[in-house]
């Protein structure tokens, strides 16, 4: 086996590298969105791409989320592989018809005749003091819809490998990046790799309790796991990486092994991602669980601006730690 070179890079850089590599590999890949070209997005994730690939492949759009998403659907059907950029995930509200009634259904409704190989990049995550319309994590909506795939990377490594898979996938894929994690660093191999969808990653092994966490919440879970280690509780942290397809087996097996599970996700808790995953585990590990599956999502409130209030709504290391401690003591 060849030696693998590994560099540290940020999640933002990893996403950019994935896009650049795929754009080099496949001339059909192009990017559409607001301020994606010279500005490289407000988060600077796309900086430099327009210089390499030019303005016909990295394309600034008007503030028309529905419009350019619709164009991406049509372009994907007819030979391109567009990546659309939705600056704040909150704005997916404007694209729901194009994504859900069109992109998600075209392949099925046409009996397989047409395909829609497109990627929507969007952000999620609170904590940036940006208020209720710039802080939501709305990935549960898309996860609900047959025909779509939903990706939630939590490390630079995952972000790169999953983005490459997303671009090569022949279906509409929504790729949610936590905007607070763009500067989060981690190792990324120089060599080319992709990560398959539907394969959960065990971010930390443990025996006493399973913590399933997505996106931004993976680091929170890992932090909680360290704290738990300090009091002698061994937590296993699992990242599903894609909410659809969902790797039920890995989640269930871990819960069977540890007999306790917590699910942490930054979306609103009610009718959110934690509900599905908790329910899958509660069913799959029914005869092995020592306690109810605990769900920890964002509080059921529009995300407040004021710092202390906002912080109170987001799951924290501490919340997860306390929940785990209570569950492990209990049995």
């Amino acid at each position, binding site marked *: 086996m060849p030696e693998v070179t590994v560099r540290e890079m940020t999640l933002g850089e990893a996403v950019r590298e994935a896009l650049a590599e795929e754009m080099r590999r496949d001339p059909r890949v*192009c990017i559409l969105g607001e301020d994606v070209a010279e500005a490289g997005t407000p988060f600077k994730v796309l900086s430099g791409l327009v210089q390499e690939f030019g303005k*016909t492949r990295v394309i600034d*759009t*008007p503030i*028309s989320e*529905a*419009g*350019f*998403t*619709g*164009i*991406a*659907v*049509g*372009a*994907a*059907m*007819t*030979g*391109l592989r*567009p990546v659309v950029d939705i600056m704040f995930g909150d704005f997916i509200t404007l694209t729901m*018809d*194009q994504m859900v*009634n*069109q992109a998600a259904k*075209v*392949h*099925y*409704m*046409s*009996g*397989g*005749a*047409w*395909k*829609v*190989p497109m990627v929507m990049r969007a952000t999620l995550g609170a904590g940036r003091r940006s208020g209720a319309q710039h802080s939501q994590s709305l990935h549960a909506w898309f996860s609900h819809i*047959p*025909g779509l*795939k939903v990706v939630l990377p939590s490390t630079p490594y995952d972000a790169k490998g999953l983005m490459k898979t997303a671009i090569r996938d*022949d*279906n509409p894929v929504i790729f949610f990046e936590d905007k607070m994690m763009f500067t989060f660093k981690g190792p990324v191999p120089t060599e080319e790799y992709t990560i398959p969808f539907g394969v959960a990653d065990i971010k930390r092994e443990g025996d006493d309790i399973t913590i399933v966490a997505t996106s931004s919440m993976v680091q929170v879970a890992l932090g909680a796991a360290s704290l738990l280690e300090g009091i002698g509780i061994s937590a296993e942290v699992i990242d599903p990486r894609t909410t659809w397809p969902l790797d039920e087996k890995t989640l269930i097996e871990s819960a069977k092994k540890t007999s306790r599970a917590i699910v942490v996700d930054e979306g609103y808790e009610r009718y959110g991602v934690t509900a599905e995953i908790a329910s899958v585990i509660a069913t799959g590990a029914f005869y092995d669980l020592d306690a109810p599956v605990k769900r920890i999502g964002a509080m059921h409130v529009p995300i407040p601006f004021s710092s202390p209030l906002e912080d109170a709504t987001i799951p924290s290391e501490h919340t997860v730690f306390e929940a785990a401690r209570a569950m492990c003591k209990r049995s």
Partner: protein
Amino acid sequence: MTTVTNQSKAHSGLGTEQLLSMYRQMVTIRLFEEQVNELYTRALMPGLAHLYIGEEAVAVGICAALHRDDYITSTHRGHGHCLAKGAAPDRMFAELLGKEAGYCRGKGGSMHIADPTSGNLGANAIVGGSMGIAAGAAFSAKNLGTKRVAVCFFGEGALGQGLLYEVMNLARLWDLPVIYVCENNLYNEYTHFSETTAGDILARPAAFGIPAESVDGQDVRAVYATARRLVDAARSGKGPAFLLCNTYRYRGHHVGDVNREYYRPKQEEQRWMTERDPIKLFGDWLIGQNLANKAQFDEILLQVKSEIEAAVEFGIKAAYPGTDQVEENIYA
């Protein structure tokens, strides 16, 4: 930017064969739709269907100006577009009846017929839902240098959808070869368009810098001639255009909409049917020009009739998809 086409000219270099083929297509659509209505009345038709009867000149005139590999997007009232773009009646009936032999293996139905081999990106049950898709197909055509053109058919009701204005702006900025074809049949379901449409329709695309014209949608030659000019311009890199076709649907909003007096007078329907029927107008002209005679028309009618009957038969006899197919084609 806003001009009205002189309808009376437009011979447009079409040969007799092409003219007769357009006539035949219009008859095909008419008879196809009558059969759909018949199927509904006989309770053989699942769900609903929106008949195109009365509007045949629009689909036929526009599609005659397109190449087979040019793209169209269509609407809930889409059978005419599909047929005019080249779909076969038998597989269409099969689709309408939910059979596996249908264009979408029965999964789409009346409102979702799609056919890559004739460039049909699909009918759409969301009013205005395909406006971005059509622009996207034009975006591909431009970026891949295929010289294809995309036509987006939509009813005047779709003028109410904001998406249209977003994509007209984009189509103009990027000079996309897409033609927005608005079929104004005067009604959004059960509401007259004047109650839902402020200002001047053609001024809307014009405001985005898009050349906009209107044409008599009952005059297939005028539709063709105008479309031809706009399509050629788009193909040669001049960007988008907008064509308003003034037309009328003879029947209800859908097959079940039978008592219509509360929203439109019978006389209005009568007037359009007797004075402005696109098949009759075209037929009269063809005869007047000595390009065809009554016997030829009778012959066409007979042929189309038997073709449509065979197609219905095909659809009725075709098998339903097995329920094992329900989970196929969710993902590519």
